C-alpha cells in the first residue's frame, strides 16, 4: 500500500511486536543511553519508551510504501505506562490529517499502542511531508 493512497480517517491494519532484548541492547548502544535507568535489558526489565515507539512505527509501517524524499516533519508522543523488555504490544494507526498543497502532501498518522492487558502505554502522532508531483492545490 502506498502512503499516498491513504485518505483522512483510513486505518492501517493493526499489528503487534515484542520488545526483545537484542532490540533494546541495540537501541541503548545506538543512542548512547546513559541515564542509568536501563543497565539491564533482560526479560522484565524496564525498557526505553522511544524504543517502543520506534518499533511500533516499524510494525505498522512495514506494509506502507513511502515515496523517495518523504520527510518526517513532526512528532508527538505521550507516555502512559512504563514498558518492559519481553512485553508484546498491539498497535493501531489512522490518518488524522491529509492535505495536498501544490506538489506536497502533508499527512499525520495517529498511533495507539496497548499492552497485552489492553491498557494504552503510549500514543503518538507522526507528521510527514511527501512529494506529490502534479497535485492540485486543495
Amino acid at each position, binding site marked *: 500500500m502506498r502512503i499516498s493512497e491513504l485518505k483522512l480517517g483510513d486505518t492501517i491494519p493493526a499489528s503487534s511486536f515484542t520488545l526483545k532484548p537484542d532490540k533494546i541492547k541495540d537501541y541503548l548502544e545506538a543512542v548512547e543511553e546513559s541515564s542509568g535507568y536501563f543497565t539491564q535489558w533482560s526479560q522484565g526489565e524496564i525498557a526505553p519508551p522511544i524504543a517502543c515507539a520506534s518499533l511500533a512505527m516499524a510494525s505498522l509501517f512495514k506494509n506502507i510504501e513511502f515515496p523517495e524524499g518523504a520527510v518526517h516533519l513532526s512528532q*508527538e508522543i505521550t507516555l502512559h505506562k512504563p514498558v518492559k523488555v519481553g512485553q508484546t504490544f498491539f498497535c493501531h494507526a489512522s490518518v488524522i490529517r491529509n492535505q495536498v498543497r501544490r506538489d506536497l502532501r502533508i499527512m499525520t498518522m495517529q498511533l495507539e499502542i496497548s499492552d497485552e492487558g489492553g491498557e494504552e502505554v503510549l500514543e503518538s502522532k507522526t507528521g510527514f511531508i511527501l512529494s506529490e508531483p502534479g497535485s492540485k492545490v486543495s
Partner: protein
Amino acid sequence: MTLGERQIPLEQIVPDMSLSSLVRIPTQERIDLYARMSGDYNPIHVDANYARETPFGGTIAHGMLVLSYISEMMLSAFGSQWFSTGWFSIRFKSPAQSGKRVKVEGRVRSVERMNGQLKVVCNVACRDEAGDSIIVGEAGVTVDLTATNN
C-alpha cells in the same frame, strides 16, 4: 543551577531553570545499529553513496534516534515518573548529520503546582555544531511529589 542527576529537589523547580544538557554523536555505526533495531534501512541513513547525491550530502540519523536524546534528558531531570506522564511535541527542522555532534538542551517554561503534583513544561531542542536547530519543541511531565522516585 540545572535539573538533572537529581541535583535539585523537584519541589524547587521554577521557570527558566535549565535541564542538564547532553552531547551525543550519531556516528554511522550507531545509525546502522538504530537501523537494525528499527528496521528502517532508508538509504539516506545507511548508504553513503546514495546519501552523497542528495541535498544532505551524506547520511543522516533517524529522526527518532535524535528524539531519544530528548527523552533521556527529561528522564534524567525528572525521574521515573517520565515513563507514565511524559510527553513531547516537536518539529524536525534539519537533519543530524552522521558523525556530527548534537547538543541537547532544555529549559523549564512553566510549573503548575496542584494537590502535591507538579505539572512541568519545558522548551527542548537539539542543535548541531553550528548551533542550528535539528529539533525544536516542548516536553512535559507531571511529577507526584508524594511518590517515591527511583
